[in-house]
């Protein structure tokens, strides 16, 4: 019964709240020591592969995440293109790669979802350590499981391309690995929280821990009690949504230098995120009664509250110091992401409510998914990377200009792709409805070129997102290798120790800087003929 399942969900949140606040009576030390042991020592040689420097866990998650975001964006672009030209990559059949349109779209969507989730988890690891005032419990474990999660994404990517038994095997392996990784990351977060020096647990920390633990607890409850599929569907998006809200509630106050505007709204965000059901990504795979559908609709509507509360809080916080908020690429990205998240959540509310009733607007579902994934989650993850990656590596990103440019490329590309693909699906739906309503219309004779044009425009617009992801990945790699160390005014590249100047030839400071001079460069004026003249 759906109501009992929802009460189970609430109880699981209360359980998490009690355990995080009070710990586990009697067994506290035992559990902590055992978790520590399992996270490093029990892994044996696996743990010795990685150095476990401070911040390396967060960096590894973000690096892997951006790589998968690039791969996901590429396949999403190909999927959008193949929507109007199914034979676009038919020439690859010569190397035995002949995917269908839906295969490419599914693989792209899953890779992108995994990549963006990795970016958010990476930022979350940094945020928790920062707000706890303590180092991450095990950076070694975080690095190790980032590779494991990447492997699970690879297996999932392969399984999307395979049918039959082997596809199922790979899918099961990917799901098992990713679940174990989530358990490890959750343990890491909880141990870090246990070592916190700051007394208060901040909203972002609650959202991070709740977002990772609630689906795991409900998964266990599903094995024991059997949870309604309608509720499980809504929980699938929870880790990503809660992590994104956590990143948003941290990045903007951090970049702006002002605390969150409202405690009440932050509290409402936490409570309602875990006590309501999100309509995002719901496909209505199982039939339910009309009473349950009505109750679900109320919970779907209530799920707007945390998103609106978080958006209001973030924008009011940014308004407190608008100059810094608008000049920071990270907070700009998060604010755009929150704006698009509100839009996509409202769209998903209608689509999610419709799936249980008439199903008249289901053609908008994929466009809404694009807006949510790339416009909402993608942009917030972008802000998280721009803000947290330099802090985690200890080096600034290579180019601030790239941060800002990619922010606008992703937001513009995602919005235009959403608008064009939504337009194409609406026109297509209108043609279908007209053909059904009027038997005299031959569907094959209708001019569908407008749909093709809109789909072409959608795919070309989305190409900006692909390019932005690749540019951001390059920015991160260059930043981690040769970015300016934070807290110093050192130039990114080593400056020349000594430079020679010739008298009689005018030289500007700009020319010296271009030649590699820094603040500590010594200038020698060398004059060959001076002695002769004297």
């Amino acid at each position: 019964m759906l109501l009992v399942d929802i009460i189970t969900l609430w109880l699981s949140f209360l359980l998490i709240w009690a355990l995080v606040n009070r710990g586990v009576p009697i067994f506290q030390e035992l559990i902590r020591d055992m978790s520590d042991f399992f996270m490093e020592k029990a892994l044996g040689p696996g743990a010795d592969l990685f150095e476990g420097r401070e911040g390396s866990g967060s960096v590894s998650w973000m690096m892997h995440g951006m790589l998968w975001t690039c791969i996901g964006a590429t396949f999403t672009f190909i999927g959008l293109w193949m929507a109007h030209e199914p034979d676009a990559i038919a020439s690859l059949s010569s190397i035995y790669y002949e995917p269908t349109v839906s295969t490419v779209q599914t693989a792209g969507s899953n890779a992108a979802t995994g990549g963006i989730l990795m970016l958010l988890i990476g930022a979350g690891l940094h945020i928790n350590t920062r707000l706890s005032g303590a180092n991450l419990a095990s950076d070694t474990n975080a690095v190790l499981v980032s590779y494991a999660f990447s492997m699970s994404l690879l297996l999932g990517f392969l399984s999307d391309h395979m049918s039959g038994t082997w596809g199922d095997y790979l899918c099961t392996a990917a799901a098992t690995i990713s679940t174990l990784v989530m358990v490890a990351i959750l343990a890491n977060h909880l141990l870090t929280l246990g070592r916190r020096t700051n007394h208060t647990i901040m909203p972002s920390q609650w959202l991070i821990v709740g977002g990772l633990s609630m689906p795991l607890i409900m998964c266990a409850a599903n094995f024991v009690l059997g949870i309604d599929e309608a509720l499980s569907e809504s929980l699938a998006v929870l880790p990503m949504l809660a992590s994104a809200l956590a990143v948003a509630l941290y990045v903007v106050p951090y970049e702006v230098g002002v605390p969150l505007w409202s405690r009440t709204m932050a509290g409402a965000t936490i409570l309602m995120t875990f006590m309501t059901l999100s309509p995002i990504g719901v496909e209505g795979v199982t039939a339910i009664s009309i009473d349950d559908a009505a109750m679900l609709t109320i919970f779907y509507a209530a799920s707007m509250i945390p998103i609106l509360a978080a958006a209001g809080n973030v924008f009011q916080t940014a308004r407190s110091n608008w100059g810094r908020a608008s000049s920071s690429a990270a907070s700009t990205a998060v604010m755009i992401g929150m704006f698009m998240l509100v839009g996509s959540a409202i769209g998903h509310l209608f689509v999610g409510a419709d799936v249980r009733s008439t199903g008249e607007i289901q053609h908008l579902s994929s466009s809404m998914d694009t807006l949510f994934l790339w416009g909402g989650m993608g942009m917030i993850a972008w802000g998280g990377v721009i803000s947290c990656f330099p802090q985690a590596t200890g080096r600034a990103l290579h180019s601030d200009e790239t941060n800002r440019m990619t922010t606008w490329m992703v937001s513009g590309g995602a919005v235009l792709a959403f608008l064009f693909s939504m337009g194409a699906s609406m026109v297509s739906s209108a043609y279908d409805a007209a053909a059904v309503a009027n038997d005299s219309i031959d569907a094959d004779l209708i001019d569908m070129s407008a749909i093709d044009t809109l789909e072409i425009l959608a795919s070309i617009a989305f190409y900006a997102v692909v390019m932005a992801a690749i540019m951001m990945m390059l920015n991160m790699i260059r930043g981690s290798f040769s970015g300016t160390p934070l807290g110093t005014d050192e130039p990114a590249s080593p400056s020349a120790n000594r430079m020679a100047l010739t008298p009689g030839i005018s030289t500007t400071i700009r020319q010296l800087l271009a030649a590699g001079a820094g603040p500590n460069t010594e200038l020698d004026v060398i004059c060959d003929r001076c002695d002769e003249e004297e």
Partner: protein
Amino acid sequence: MIGDSTLPDVTLGDDEPPMARVLLVISIVGAIALLILHGVLFPGSEIPALGDFISLFGGLANSGIWIFLVGIMIGFGMMVATVMGGALED
């Protein structure tokens, strides 16, 4: 108010836009100009794919998507090159 102007006597500055941005703008303008030119010279015909003007790719790349995919491949190549360059430099 003429007397309140804070402009110096010479209203030319020394700053220049970065060369990368100049090239980006020129590339975009050039691409749009070529698209318009193609529309004027060959009205109604599709934009040529990579395989139409590079005979090496004649049998392989006969769709417009390959123009975009080449850009993505170059991007991934740059990623590998940057990682290798950074690792070897260190």
